[in-house]
């Protein structure tokens, strides 16, 4: 055993408390919940419905639940490792300590691209929402969405630049609003409180499984969108007051919240919107919950879900900027990327250079690519990251058995969650292959090229032993 205890407030192995060595430690479990759910909840407001288009409404529900199992495994595994590796960078830092530098570099890029693409998708949806509101307000000509897309990204980047506490407190409020909006829509339209407008049987008639069993597999691709980003809670590890308690609590509470929200979302949307319209997120329903509210006949619900959609996109984009910049910052600090990115703002204590640098990257994708392609790029990066996690936890338990390091949380039934996660990742790779195989190969080609670039060029600038910063004993087998 080492003389470090992750569950202690004074000897948890983090940077010196109250000093200016690292990022500011001000967050509690509610902020962790808000960061995780805030990033993901937009997945209920837009994007998940592409799963309906891939296989029909029932296929989307099955994908919702299987993806829920996948993410429950992710949350369990992540909670254990992160409650021990409490440092900015999340899975990147985990990979660096458990598997090795090149894996860490790849995982860092998965995180940055998954979140930056998600941020771009959020900005596109916010732009769409502004155009719908303009249309409802009587504006006749088609609204140019680009200024709104730029404004959303710039405003949230500025908020992130100014400080993490204000950023995530803002997220806490708007995420809670967006979640409550889904509950209110469910209560108001399902017949529990007021007249019900659900007609699942009538809308599904003749279209139960339009593509058969392969449609269920194909739906897994966008099934991930219901929950993609919950693993981002680990990015706050260096900024929470009590990592051993706050990170597992916030992450597991987050996945439970999302399982409820995802199922309710499927229920209300598929019970009101025809599946072909619901399943086309480009030409049909860009924002399904908002569209469901529009068909409810209630002006109050339209406004509620309009603001819910807007808040969900803002909360998600906000959290994405937070997470992507932390991962980029952590790689810069270790010289995996140019060290210039590893700077902390002298006043706000935020990774300001990383925040600013990622703004134009998000804008390039938000302004230049269609929504489904941006979402696919994000999902693929996430999927590669989830495939890494089972390998990570198996090696973690092998190199540091339970008795060698005290965990803040130990996930049960190991290795069942790891094997389940790996299997579901395999299924999802096949789902992405059905229709988006070119992107999949292009993306993996990209990661192979940058891996070679890192191994044969970039790694020479990295300190060897100094990058292992956790106060752990020597791993078994080395």
């Amino acid at each position: 055993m080492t003389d470090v205890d992750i569950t202690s407030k004074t000897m948890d192995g983090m940077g010196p408390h109250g000093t200016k060595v690292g990022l500011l430690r001000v967050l509690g479990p509610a902020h962790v919940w808000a960061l995780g759910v805030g990033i993901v909840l937009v997945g209920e407001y837009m994007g998940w419905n592409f799963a309906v288009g891939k296989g029909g409404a029932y296929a989307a529900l099955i994908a919702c639940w299987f993806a829920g199992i996948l993410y429950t495994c992710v949350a369990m595994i992540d909670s254990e490792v992160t409650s021990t590796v409490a440092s900015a960078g999340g899975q990147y830092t985990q990979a660096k300590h458990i598997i090795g530098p090149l894996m860490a570099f790849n995982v860092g890029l998965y995180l940055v691209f998954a979140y930056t693409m998600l941020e771009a998708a959020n900005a596109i949806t916010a732009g769409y929402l502004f155009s719908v509101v303009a249309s409802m307000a009587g504006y006749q000509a088609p609204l140019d969405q680009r200024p709104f897309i730029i404004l959303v990204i710039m405003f949230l980047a500025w908020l992130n630049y100014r400080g993490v506490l204000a950023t995530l407190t803002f997220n806490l409020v708007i995420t809670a609003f967006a979640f409550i909006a889904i509950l209110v829509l469910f209560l108001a339209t399902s017949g529990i409180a007021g007249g019900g407008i659900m007609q699942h049987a009538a809308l599904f008639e003749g279209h139960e499984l339009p593509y058969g069993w392969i449609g269920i597999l194909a739906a897994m691709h966008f099934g991930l969108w219901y929950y993609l980003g919950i693993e981002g809670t680990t990015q706050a590890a260096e900024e929470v007051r009590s990592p051993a308690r706050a990170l597992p609590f916030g992450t597991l509470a987050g996945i439970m919240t999302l399982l409820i929200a995802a199922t309710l979302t499927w229920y209300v949307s598929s019970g009101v919107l025809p599946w072909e319209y619901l399943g086309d997120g480009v030409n049909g329903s860009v924002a399904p919950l908002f569209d469901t509210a529009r068909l409810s006949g209630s002006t109050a619900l339209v406004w509620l879900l309009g603001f819910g959609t807007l808040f969900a996109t803002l909360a998600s984009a906000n959290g994405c900027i937070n997470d992507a910049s932390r991962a980029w910052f952590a790689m810069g600090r270790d010289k995996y990327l140019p060290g210039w990115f590893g700077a902390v703002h002298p006043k706000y204590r935020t990774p300001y250079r990383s925040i600013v640098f990622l703004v134009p990257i998000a804008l390039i994708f938000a302004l230049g690519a269609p929504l489904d392609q941006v979402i696919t790029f994000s999902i693929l990066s996430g999927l590669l990251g989830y495939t890494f996690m089972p390998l990570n936890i198996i090696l973690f338990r092998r190199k540091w058995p339970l008795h060698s390091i005290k965990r803040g949380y130990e996930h049960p039934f190991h290795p069942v969650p790891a094997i389940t996660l790996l299997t579901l990742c395999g299924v999802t790779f096949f789902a992405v292959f059905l229709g988006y195989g070119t992107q999949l190969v292009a993306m993996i080609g990209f990661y192979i090229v940058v891996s070679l670039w890192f191994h044969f060029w970039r790694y020479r600038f990295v300190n060897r032993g100094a990058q292992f910063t956790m106060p752990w004993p020597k791993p078994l087998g080395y």
Partner: protein
Amino acid sequence: MAHYTPPKQGRASQLIDVIVLVILTVGALFVPLWLGLAGAAKSVETPVANPTWETLGQTPAQAAQYEALGYTPEAAHDLILARFDYSFSITALLTMIAVILLYYFLILRFSEVEYREVIAEKFGE
């Protein structure tokens, strides 16, 4: 293991590294789009002339929702009839599997080499 001292990287070299990464990133998404290989396009195999809700396969309940959304049968024609094509070749599937396995093999192998250096320097040998 002897302590490794990395070379100091100049500003110009740092800038080039960033530019390389940005070009590769943008290329990974946009090249398939520019080449028209992005996939996932839906198509209407058998268009219906003078469509009605019945000929589009819609029940009265389904048609009522489309009308509430502001659609006519003509406007909803492509939306309703467009389908994905999920046919694929075994060769393409095996190629994808091989690429994924190659990728993970590559990074795990190189990572292990780098990791042994890290552990050797950190904990001494």
